[in-house]
């Protein structure tokens, strides 16, 4: 636990600091895999004909898949998913996943704020910038992280 506590010493964090970043390559295979794992079998996530019939430009990634991968770099940074106290996003723009090229989703995590929580322990707010094809796809994407108990 020493390493964890050292990593999460909030005294070393400053607002605006980039704490994690990662790029994900989503393919149609990724969407089928997420459909099976999550139980969300809406065909707009794997069938072009259904997607276009409801007015979409093509097959989209599940919003919850984008939310799921976006948390991953932060969880890897803190090491322990149990330190996440809150995670929220708005789905502002869909991620189009081309049948042959797939889609790149880029996640950059920055310290948004460091606060004292109600019980006197510190919490850090980490703001995620999530983009695909140069456009932001998630709004107000924020995780709150508890300081590791020493």
């Amino acid at each position, binding site marked *: 636990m020493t390493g964890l506590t050292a990593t999460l010493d909030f005294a070393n964090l400053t607002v605006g600091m980039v704490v994690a970043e990662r790029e*994900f390559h989503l393919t149609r295979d*990724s969407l089928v*895999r*997420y459909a*099976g*794992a*999550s*139980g*969300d079998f809406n065909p707009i996530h794997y069938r072009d004909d259904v997607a276009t019939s*409801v007015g979409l430009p093509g097959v989209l990634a599940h*919003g*919850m*898949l984008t*939310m*799921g*991968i976006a*948390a*991953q770099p932060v*969880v*890897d940074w803190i*090491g*322990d*998913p*149990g330190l*996440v*106290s*809150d*995670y*929220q*996003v*708005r*789905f502002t723009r869909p991620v189009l996943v081309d049948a042959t090229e797939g889609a790149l989703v880029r996640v950059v995590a920055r310290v948004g704020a460091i606060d004292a929580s109600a019980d006197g322990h510190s919490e850090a707010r980490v703001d995620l910038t999530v983009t695909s094809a140069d456009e932001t796809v998630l709004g*107000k994407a924020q*995780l709150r992280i508890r300081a590791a108990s020493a």
Partner: protein
Amino acid sequence: MGVNPDIAGRVFPPAEPYLVGREKIREFARAVFSENPVNLDPDAARARGYADIVAPPTFPIVVQERTLAQLLAEPDAGIDFTRVVHGDQRFKYSRPIVAGDELTATLTVTSVKSLGGHSMVTSESAIVDATGAHVVTATSTLVVRGDES
């Protein structure tokens, strides 16, 4: 037919309990590109003080989904599934979900709003473990597109 505003405040019966399997967590973790040993390897999870592998932060959606299915199927709610778009999502955690948990989710409709011909239905699903202790609350806003769009 639009969304019935009178469903605001309605509390649904608890959904069927969900028993969290280790392989289900692994399957979900791989689907969200997790390579974190705490999500995959029981020994790594135990070294962190957990009884078994830990679910990724968005796994509660799988448990919450049972309650959203209740909401969508509610006869007088007037929610047309084919017009539903996921607007936002939030999880507030007391602790992470761990393999072996038996979880029960109870949905409350917190608000129904109209905006530019669309309806926004916000609901909160409180998820508790077999002892009744709070694990996580999952909040979703579903946007139900209006007839003319």
